[in-house]
């Protein structure tokens, strides 16, 4: 089975929907995501041991933007994650990027009712998003770096109606 085709089919099944309004939906989302990733890698005999809710949300947000049919982004396996404790919490990730590549970063939260944002800053600290979007517990930002070097990814917990600790995850892809 072509894993890229699998990804496209799975996305069409979910209609590219990245929202879930309750815990049941969140679980379904995690199951869909696990199944998707499992299917993508089944041919390799790899079994996914664990996918966090936050990472699942980020991956699900990423899939429609990976341009799998045409000029695909390569989604990195590595990811960042930590907890947010309260609304307004900000995390900064320092990361090396390379000129001429195009990058997407996606943030996801474990709590569907919470709200997150993600933005990218250059080595001088200037906002450098080529485009960005935010939709409840997931968000994305794209950058085409003007030079190679350090960049800063800023993730913020915008809303947290539940008031409890929320896990965040950031993944990225390049082409």
């Amino acid at each position, binding site marked *: 089975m072509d894993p890229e085709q699998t990804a496209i089919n799975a996305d069409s099944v979910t209609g590219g929907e990245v929202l879930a309004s309750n815990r049941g939906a969140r679980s379904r989302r995690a199951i869909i995501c696990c199944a998707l990733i499992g299917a993508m890698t089944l041919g390799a005999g790899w079994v996914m041991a664990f996918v966090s809710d936050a990472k699942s949300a980020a991956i699900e947000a990423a899939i429609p933007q990976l341009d799998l049919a045409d000029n695909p982004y390569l989604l990195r396996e590595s990811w960042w994650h930590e907890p947010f404790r309260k609304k307004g919490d900000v995390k900064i990730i*320092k990361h090396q990027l390379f000129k001429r590549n195009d990058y997407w970063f996606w943030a996801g939260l474990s709590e569907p009712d919470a709200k997150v944002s993600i933005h990218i800053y250059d080595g001088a600290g200037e906002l450098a998003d080529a485009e960005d979007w935010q939709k409840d517990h997931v968000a994305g930002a794209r950058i085409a770096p003007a030079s190679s070097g350090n960049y800063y990814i800023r993730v*913020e917990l915008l809303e947290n109606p539940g008031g409890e600790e929320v896990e965040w995850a950031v993944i990225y892809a390049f082409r």
Partner: protein
Amino acid sequence: MVAGMNQLRTTILATTAATVLVCLPYSAARGQNGTPQKIDIANLPAETIGQVIIPIPQEVFASLDKLGSRNWRGQIKDHKIELNSDRSRTALLFGLVIADGFIAVQAENRNGVVNIGRDVQRLAVALGVRNEVDGHALAIVDGAGDADWKSVRRELDRARQTVIDTMKKLQDDELADLVSIGGWLGGTRALSALLAEDYSAEGAELLHQPDLVNQIAQRYEALPAATKPGPVYSGVKNTLRSLSPLMRIEAGGDISKESVETILKLTADLTQKIYGS
């Protein structure tokens, strides 16, 4: 000229319209939600994440390829891996082999990639992570057979990440770090070799990795001494420290051909020592 300008204007308008359409379903525009237009990087908050993700060689190779074709075949090295009981060396070798895999994919060298897949299997056995990595190793070999280079690149990254995750699960965090360092070393060696062969300031700019090399050096130096027995490991430390000033561009400057050649010598010597130790 006018027609060209009109065409350009049409393209810009179309692109802008497409971007607006793509962004319409989403609520955030730049500046909304109090997004700062600038952050003070000299005074980053305590919430800066310590976890460093080292770019895979493919990230830098993808950029280099956009400057024109390169002699990737010339970068394929036929290393014979003699394993010993030094697990730290095995971890470094795992990272180096993954980097060699990305090079072989760039060269679209089927036999080279198949051999890499087999080396990945052997090294995974030596690291005690065979079950976790076997599927990826087989997928690398199969992908090479089908010339499915996208799949091979994905599986190389997955094999690397699986070893790192498994090592961390087994409380072998230091070996996980060494896998990452080996991968970065192999990628940097290949990049500097290609640039030394066909230098351009634009290409050499990819070696501008000022903080990354320092972060790698700090992580390496923080590893327990028992993880780094013998002269090869002091060589790693010295090489990383020597690379740091070379991989930095001061305002308006370039990374010179001489610096590229020094980076190549340092990384090639260390790679050879790791394979040969």
